[in-house]
């Protein structure tokens, strides 16, 4: 890198901090939110205020964000180490099925079934880790393989037709009720977010992930156990995907082989929108959280707009605008660099 990297921590000038990617994303999020608050809130026939500007709606947004949010949290360390994990959505599906089986077919009590599912999720992440670190295969190819493998297993186990339902109320509480004012699963999501944030921003692990993402060889020469650190992020991704599967099952009250189809792409979108470089090395957990929120608010807000409702195209429109938002954010990130290259240099380069 040609320019001087600002020193980490609090020493950056306030101007730079206000214009960091995360802050700009926060402004976009606020703008989105205000826009939908004014354009997406109406009074219905019975005189009740409905739409975006209701507490119920805000809680729905939070509730619907938890699973994709968890996957995005799982993917942030992965992408920062310059890796990728395409298998998290499929692993969500497989874990949901395994959980259903452990509870329904094996007759385990719910807490034990959850514990086993989490272990199995971590093991599945371990399979990715093993192939990536010991065989030195590219993460994209490995996880493309396990993406099909995990989903295929889920479909094979259920022969595509078994659906586990009739979970006890006490379990559904995690997905459908509120606890201390918020959707229950939001607390789990926040706890995981805090843990991953601490790991990435307040421990040497976090710093080593960035170092590995920037220059794996350099990190190895610097004495970092690169293989073990990389393995850790994939195992962690597997564990979090399994947790997301539990929450998904509790929210819908059903475990089916198609659970979480396509979620990996939403999660990757959120991570990249949040400012994490797909080439690794830079990124932040709070950026990812903002990315998740920006997409969730956009998607839910659109569904409240009368025009979109009349067109019956909420889902199509949200896909279209999420894509546009991501491309704009990426362009805006690269544009200044391109422009500065075009401008004649005022200073002679330092010797």
């Amino acid at each position, binding site marked *: 890198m040609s320019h001087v990297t600002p020193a980490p921590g609090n020493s950056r000038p306030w101007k730079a901090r206000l*214009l960091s990617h995360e802050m*700009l994303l926060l*402004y*976009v999020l606020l*703008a*989105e939110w205000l*826009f939908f608050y004014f*354009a*997406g809130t*109406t*009074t*219905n*026939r*019975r005189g*009740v205020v*409905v*739409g975006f500007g*209701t507490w*119920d*709606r805000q809680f*729905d947004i939070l509730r*619907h964000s938890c699973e994709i949010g968890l996957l995005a949290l799982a993917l942030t360390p992965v992408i920062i180490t310059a890796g990728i994990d395409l298998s998290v959505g499929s692993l969500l599906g497989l874990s949901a099925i395994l959980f259903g089986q452990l509870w329904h077919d094996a007759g385990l009590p719910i807490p034990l079934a959850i514990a086993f599912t989490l272990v199995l999720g971590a093991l599945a992440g371990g399979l990715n880790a093993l192939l990536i670190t010991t065989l030195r295969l590219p993460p994209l190819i490995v996880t493309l393989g396990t993406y099909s493998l995990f989903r295929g297993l889920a479909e094979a186990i259920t022969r595509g037709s078994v*659906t586990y*339902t*009739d979970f006890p109320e006490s379990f*559904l509480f995690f997905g*459908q009720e509120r606890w201390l004012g918020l959707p229950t699963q939001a607390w789990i999501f926040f706890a995981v977010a805090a843990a991953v944030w601490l790991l990435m921003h307040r421990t040497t692990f976090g710093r080593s992930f960035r170092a590995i993402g920037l220059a794996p060889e350099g990190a190895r020469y610097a004495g970092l156990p690169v293989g073990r650190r990389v393995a850790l992020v994939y195992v962690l991704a597997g564990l979090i995907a399994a947790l997301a599967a539990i929450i*998904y099952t509790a*929210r*819908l*009250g*059903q475990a*089916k082989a*198609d*659970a979480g*189809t396509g979620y990996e792409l939403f999660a990757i979108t959120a991570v990249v929108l949040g400012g994490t470089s797909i080439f690794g090395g830079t990124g932040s957990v709070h950026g990812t959280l903002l990315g998740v929120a920006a997409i969730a608010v956009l998607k*839910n807000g*659109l*569904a*409240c*707009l*009368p*025009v*979109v*409702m*009349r067109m*019956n195209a*909420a*889902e*199509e*429109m949200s896909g279209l*605008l999420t894509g*546009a*938002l991501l491309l*704009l*954010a990426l*362009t*805006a990130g690269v*544009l*200044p660099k391109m422009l500065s290259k075009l401008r004649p240099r005022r200073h002679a380069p330092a010797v």
Partner: protein
Amino acid sequence: MKNSLLRLCAAGAVLLASLATAVAADSKLVVAMLPKSKGNAYFISCKAGADKAAKELGVQLLFDGPTDSNAAKQNEIVENWITLGVDVIAVAAENKEGISTALRKAQKQGINVITYDADALPDARAFFVNQATPEGIGQSLMDEAARLTGGEGEFAMIVGSLTAANQREWQKHVEARLKEKYPKMKLVVVRPCDDLKDKAQSEATAMLSANSNLKLIMAICSPGVPGTAEAVKQAGKAGKVKVMGLGLPNENRRYVKEGVTDSVILWNTGDLGYLTVYAGAALAKGELKKGAKTVKAGSLGTFQIAGDNILLGKPFIFNKGNIDQFDF
């Protein structure tokens, strides 16, 4: 960096602002209808009827669903409608238990919930618009078979499987009707096709060579009808041995037009959508209450209610004359 991102925000705002219009206080009743998947021709034809009913009633119809049959998305769409405060939610459930959670929540918020095409759990909706009872299907199949053969002669049946519950039920009602009304007709053989077109074709070929007196083959699983038609066509017995059964217009259109298949029986999906909207609106207006025996639906007249099932009534018969009006 600053300028380009400001421009980005401005562009985003303009894009979004163009999507929003001034919201007039809409005093129309809002009926939200959820198909299993919105690209499916079957549900598109439901929507055509629903649109017609909405126009006649002056209600606003929302028709949205997953682009694929995705139970999770169905729940999200219903939850979206709950916070939008629609008046009626009408659902074709992809997954009974899964959707019922969301529907109960809607009921708790005072939204009227009905199901159509595929039911949810009974406590999660007020009524189910039932497109066809097993009895209605069995009777229509047998009556049509009798009409085609002039009420006498031997006929054979191809079923999906010998164990599937709905197939067993339909077969039972066909046989009951036969015994009751058509003493001169005789069911000589029943064979399963495992819901495969190829298997239906080979079974039908075997039937044709074994029974030279056969006047009609009835297939009561949807792959069975075109499979049987192909067998009859290849045996050169088109017209001599009649073919009919339960199925979708599109997969039988070719054989119906060639004159190999005489009748395809199903329900009129347009009427299903039409009745669903009328029933939903009546429920919201308080005209349709628990325990009602009938419900009125515009130009289609009055429909019977059995318990909490609104009955669409007699199945619809697709034949050479009308099949081109349907596309599903």
